[in-house]
């Protein structure tokens, strides 16, 4: 790990950018000022053409790759994708990870202090949408002197942001990687999100979102929300294979204690998450997912919505992903084709479910790497200086789930 790993970007440093220009949000409210916390890896080239923006999903953040000097165990959530010799090669690309507005990892969000009141925003933090995130990310790119992204990339909700970039800033993005995503959530997905939100808001410690003022944390609700979400991010086969019907003791206890291994695992994951994540952020992120639907303004015609785009698309899905299944990605591809955009589509045969986009799958990483190599050639970034090594960080699967869970 760390300095001894030539394929790591090394020690990362979170940076902070403050914006005093108000941001008018899609929902009508205005954020008078805000801060975004971000990390960068690699070097911006002379003509500033090698920037890659990584957009995070529901519970992700700006710490995408590398580790922290004072916390070497804290590896970025997409470290297997980004680094020298990795698919997104930091020898040639300047990679930016940013924590979205409304998040709880440093960017202005419901747990931040509202300057107007001197107290945490709590329930008063406005709902933000994918469009708002993209607008705020574009301002960060302005600040970094990046006129046009080589690519924006993300999985799940992150893929939705990459797609939104091509609609809102068609001249500022060359390629969009839309991975394990969809043009809008299915009814079932919205239903899951609502159950998760209900778990949170019905926790007595939630206090209508102003739990900070009551020195409380709605940990039970957040835990339930995460447990539910977690089940949906994995495939049935994988859960069965990992946990089966294994129990802690051979004999059944005939009570309601934790007995099955899956119960123990999910509760552990839920507890861990509830300790670090903000309940209001969870509500905002799930709502942003529910509202995302670029074809809403074109009467459901996604191809027409995409007619503004100038970017090329890389779309990718995973066979065992039942939350964002391949059929949803094929809808995207169809619309991109109909709007005349260049698009490459790969359907990866991975067993892990939705979480597969975070994991170290060789065929997935190889095709992402190959596509990025083409971008590098097009922008004159030359060949790889560190040989591409796929699957070098052998995935120990449980570590994968526990360490990399932050991405989804």
């Amino acid at each position: 790990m760390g300095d001894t790993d030539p394929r790591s970007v090394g020690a990362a440093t979170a940076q902070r950018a403050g914006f005093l220009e108000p941001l008018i949000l899609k929902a009508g409210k205005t954020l008078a000022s805000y801060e975004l916390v971000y990390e960068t890896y690699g070097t911006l080239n002379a003509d500033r053409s090698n920037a890659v923006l990584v957009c995070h999903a529901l519970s992700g953040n700006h710490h995408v790759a590398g580790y922290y000097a004072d916390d070497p165990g804290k590896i970025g959530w997409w470290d297997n994708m980004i680094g020298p010799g990795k698919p997104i090669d930091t020898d040639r690309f300047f990679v930016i990870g940013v924590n979205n507005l409304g998040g709880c990892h440093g960017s202005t969000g419901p747990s931040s202090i509202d300057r107007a009141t001197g107290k945490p925003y709590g329930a008063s933090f406005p709902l933000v949408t994918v469009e708002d995130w993209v607008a705020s990310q574009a301002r960060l790119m302005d600040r970094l002197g990046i006129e046009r992204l080589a690519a924006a990339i993300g999985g799940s909700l992150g893929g939705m942001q990459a797609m939104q970039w091509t609609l809102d800033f068609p001249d500022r993005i060359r390629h969009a990687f839309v991975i394990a995503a969809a043009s809008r959530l299915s009814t079932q997905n919205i239903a899951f999100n609502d159950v998760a939100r209900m778990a949170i808001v019905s926790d007595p410690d939630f206090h209508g979102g102003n739990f900070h003022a009551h020195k409380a944390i709605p940990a039970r609700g957040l835990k339930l929300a995460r447990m539910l979400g977690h089940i949906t991010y994995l495939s049935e086969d994988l859960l069965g294979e990992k946990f089966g019907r294994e129990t802690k003791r051979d004999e059944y206890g005939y009570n309601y204690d934790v007995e099955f291994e899956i119960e123990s695992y999910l509760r552990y994951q839920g507890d861990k998450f509830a300790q670090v994540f903000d309940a209001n952020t969870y509500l905002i992120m799930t709502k942003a997912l529910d509202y995302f639907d670029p074809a809403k303004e074109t009467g459901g015609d996604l191809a027409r919505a995409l007619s503004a785009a100038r970017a090329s698309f890389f779309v990718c899905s995973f066979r065992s992903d039942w939350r964002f299944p391949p059929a949803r990605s094929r809808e995207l591809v169809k619309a991109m084709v109909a709007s005349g955009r260049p698009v490459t589509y790969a359907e990866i045969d991975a067993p892990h479910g939705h979480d597969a986009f975070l994991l170290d799958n060789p065929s997935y990483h190889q095709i992402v790497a190959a596509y990025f190599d083409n971008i590098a050639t097009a922008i004159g970034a030359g060949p790889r200086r560190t040989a591409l090594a796929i699957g070098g960080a052998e995935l120990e699967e449980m570590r994968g789930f526990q360490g990399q869970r932050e991405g989804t």
Partner: protein
Amino acid sequence: MNRRYDFALISSWIPERSRVLDLGCGDGELLAGLAATRNVTGYGIEIDPALVLASVKNGVSVIQDDIESGLETFARDSFDFVILSQTLQAVRNVEGVMREMLRVGREGIVTFPNFGYWRHRLDIFGGHMPVSRTLPHSWYDTPNIHLCTVKDFEDLCRKLGAVILDERVIHEGRQVNFMPNLLGSLGVFRFKEK
């Protein structure tokens, strides 16, 4: 494989800046070549993940899909050319794929190993399934399930109501004009919907 023999002929038929769909595009060589020499745009369709990767490496916009399940992704007449190069013989639903080609493309181009080629006939006459440069597989491990002769393909076009615009039979890059169904190993057809 002798794909290149039909690539040259196909390329000569395709005007600059055409929109092309290549069904079963393999490693994307044809489309990459057409993009470089003719400025064409379009997509390759490929089912094999290893070949999808190879197509990406060749800079081709490739969509991983099964052409047998239809070209639902594509609208009527959305391409100038839909190409099926040396893939027909391995297609299960030949008629369905042909109909989809006619729908999606203004013109279709199909190339296939001519089963009527004299060496193939000779092999059968000698009591064996043909093995040749165009048909390199042994009968027991061949992906080819729908082999046909040049005459058979003409019949299929007629049945589907397709108009044959051009029809060549080639052998190792050279056009065969004398008894083509006997002396040519590769059929190359260009057709459109009536």
